[in-house]
């Protein structure tokens, strides 16, 4: 038995030492989550505007273009679940926070988990998604990141491409000469708007929405979040970011109508503004791809939003925003909702006609 144990030990020691060293290295890697966590913690007392959301907000809103001190805590595929909990984590330290931009996109009200990013997010912010993360993965980065990503991290110090930023989700086409500034790093290049890619992206979002069972619970969670912010005299602003117009047409119009109705219900009941930039007219060179802005687009959008925030701040009723409606926003929502509902009814009527006459295909839904 003794020779067996000694040989086992001999075999395992190099493995354990290697694993230990890799684990230490992985823990020290400055991922996008950790960078944002550190930057926000350092600047918490100055931040007046916090930007939340998924990749649309991550790449689409540049805090440096805002006249108020802003910080972008959005991350790729970040759900409202994480938006809420990350904000609550810092809320006590965000003593000057006045506005929170909550990005609500086509699929935002339909998903709460981030897939593999749940764990990456946990390593960054310490938020355990619905207490579902496996213990081994929580405690061991090597186990959690898995082989391919761990090896990629190990390789990055040797690659010039990733000399400045070595973080999760820094995959391609990011401006590596400008490391995270106020939580933001923008996409460069584009537009990548091939029809197949648009269709794939739309199918991806439609799939999330059509297979979701979380819609009501997410809305309830969001409303709770808004109430918490309002109790702290912070103005939550729901915002939808632009997408490439042909891409919009590939999304499910009934879902968009439902989204509009949901957002309207939230905004009217909570008396908060909703800024819809979904169909904002932008040149195609402002887009990185179907649903992401590049740095140029992000600059244009950020300045537009900043102007609106300035207006909001300068208006005599700004302070009263917490208790009053925003009429302009309210009516813009109503009009858009009407348009979308009409579109939906026409769609449904045509669909009904098509189904009622199976032999005669007179109309094909686009």
């Amino acid at each position, binding site marked *: *038995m003794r*020779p*067996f144990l000694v*040989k086992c030990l001999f*075999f395992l020691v*190099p*493995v354990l030492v290697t*694993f230990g060293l890799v684990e230490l290295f992985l823990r020290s890697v400055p991922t996008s989550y950790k960078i944002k966590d550190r930057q926000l913690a350092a600047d918490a007392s100055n931040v007046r505007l916090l930007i939340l959301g998924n990749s649309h907000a991550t790449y689409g809103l540049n805090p440096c273009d805002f006249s108020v001190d802003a910080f972008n805590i959005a991350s790729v595929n970040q759900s409202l679940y994480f938006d809420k909990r990350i904000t609550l984590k810092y809320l006590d330290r965000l003593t000057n926070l006045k506005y929170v931009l909550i990005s609500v996109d086509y699929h935002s009200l339909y998903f709460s988990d981030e897939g593999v990013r749940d*764990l990456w997010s946990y390593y960054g912010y310490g938020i355990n998604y619905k207490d579902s993360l*496996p213990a*081994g*993965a929580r405690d061991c980065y*090597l*186990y*959690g990141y*898995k*082989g*391919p990503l761990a*090896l990629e991290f190990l390789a990055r110090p040797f690659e010039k491409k990733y000399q400045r930023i070595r973080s999760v989700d820094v995959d391609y086409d990011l401006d590596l000469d400008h490391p995270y500034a106020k939580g933001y790093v923008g996409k460069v290049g584009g537009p990548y708007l091939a029809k197949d890619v648009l269709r794939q992206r739309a199918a991806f979002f439609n799939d999330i929405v059509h297979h979701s069972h979380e819609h009501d619970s997410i809305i309830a969670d969001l409303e709770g979040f808004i109430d918490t912010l309002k109790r702290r005299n912070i103005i939550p602003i729901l915002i939808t970011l632009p997408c490439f117009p042909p891409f919009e047409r590939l999304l499910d119009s009934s879902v968009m109508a439902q989204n509009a109705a949901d957002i309207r219900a939230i905004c009217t009941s909570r008396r908060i503004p909703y800024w819809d930039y979904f169909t904002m007219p932008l040149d195609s060179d402002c887009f990185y791809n179907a649903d992401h802005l590049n740095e140029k687009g992000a600059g244009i959008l950020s300045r537009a939003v900043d102007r609106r925030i300035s207006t909001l701040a300068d208006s005599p009723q700004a302070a009263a925003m917490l208790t009053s409606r925003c009429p302009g926003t309210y009516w813009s929502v109503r009009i858009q909702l009407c348009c979308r509902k009409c579109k939906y009814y026409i769609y449904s009527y045509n669909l009904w006609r098509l189904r009622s006459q199976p032999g005669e295909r007179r109309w094909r839904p686009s």
Partner: protein
Amino acid sequence: MLFNSLQYALFLPVVFFIYWFITSKNLRLQNGFLLAASYFFYACWDWRFLFLLLFSTFLDFFSGLKIGKTEKRSKRLFWLWLSISINLGFLGVFKYYNFFATSFAALLSHMGLAVHPRMLNVVLPVGISFYTFHGLSYILDVYRRRIEPERNFIDYGLFVSFFPLLVAGPIERATHLLPQLKKPRNFDYRKTVDGMKQILWGLFKKIVIADTCARYVNAVYDNPAAMPGSARLLAAVFFAIQIYGDFSGYSDIALGTARMLGIELLRNFAYPYFSRSIAEFWRRWHISLSSWFRDYLYIPLGGSKVGTWKKIRNVFVIFLVSGFWHGANWTFICWGALNALFILPSVILKTNRNNLEIVAKGRSAPTLRELAAMALTFALTVLAWIFFRSDSLPGAFSFIAGIFSPSLFYPFPTLHLHRYFMVPLVCFFLTEWYGREDPYAIARFQLWPKTLRWAAYYAIFFYISYFSSYAPQQFIYFQF
């Protein structure tokens, strides 16, 4: 508790050390501890089904004693059929009730009668097909006086529930395993290391090969209509590799674990994809099940020592039952029927006992004729696996039709297939070929210099770590 999970990586060393350090002086204690560990292992899935396992074990143990006690044929037959019918009854209720109910309802609806049968909303107890077959083999062997009835419940319980083979085989025979459990077992360095190596190779097959193939296969089978013929063909080939890596990987881990504990289990796989005919394939694939059906079904039906028509009937019976054993779905039955069709010519022409030795024995490469025969056999098995993997028969036929379409020549989508996967895949086949004369592929590494050997083990270890995920994938055969 899956063999490829962190829990098992902790469970096995604990069992190993208690088994060899604390209980090794006393055989009864050793067997008792293994039985307790096996029940714990099973209870990790669902402790409620432990009662079913205990009941089935006790029924066969008691029936065995009763059969052994009397010389009267009628009484022996009574206890035999009681045990068989209750065992198969459980299997029928849990595994086949919904299938029969829906099939019957469908048949009636074709006749214009609308029936809405009540479905069982119960999960299939894991390993039920395997431990039922353990029990049946024991009872049949006792009835045929091939073995004396076991009088020690712990030993018998361990034969049925020994944790490495409890949930997905190999399907052991009482004549093979029970005598081993009766003998004192001493720690053997060579056997233990051999067992560990086999576990390592099993994990490589499962985690690196099978699970990676599975990602591609699932992506294609989940949405076949959107996939070109090339992707379907690749998915069909990958599924053949996946199911081999998955099941033979499981068997390697089971055999290695048992060997570490001083117990030899029946071999389940012998490089089936290097077979030169379908008959040879079935001598090398899931050997313990094939030999079970041969001994307890095929030979009692007359085997091949009957007329041609009966021979054909026997071949179809055995393959249809084998297909049905895998699952309550017409796809499995069709898979069995297809294999029966493939094997039939060799049975009729009496060439099914050709190719008993492994291909190119003593040579490094096969001849062109052997290569062509292997390729043809592999192609036929791939075709049959399409039925095995598909959810329904129309789905399988449309999948095959999609392969043989102009889109076969389109470039196939990579579908998140790991860009370096071809490296371990090629290494896997080369290693299997290199070690095809041994019980498992890397056994031959023993002949290498120590440095090279250890480097190879580290490389395998590295690949397993690299491809492993924190959510271990189920083994395919757990569902059976």
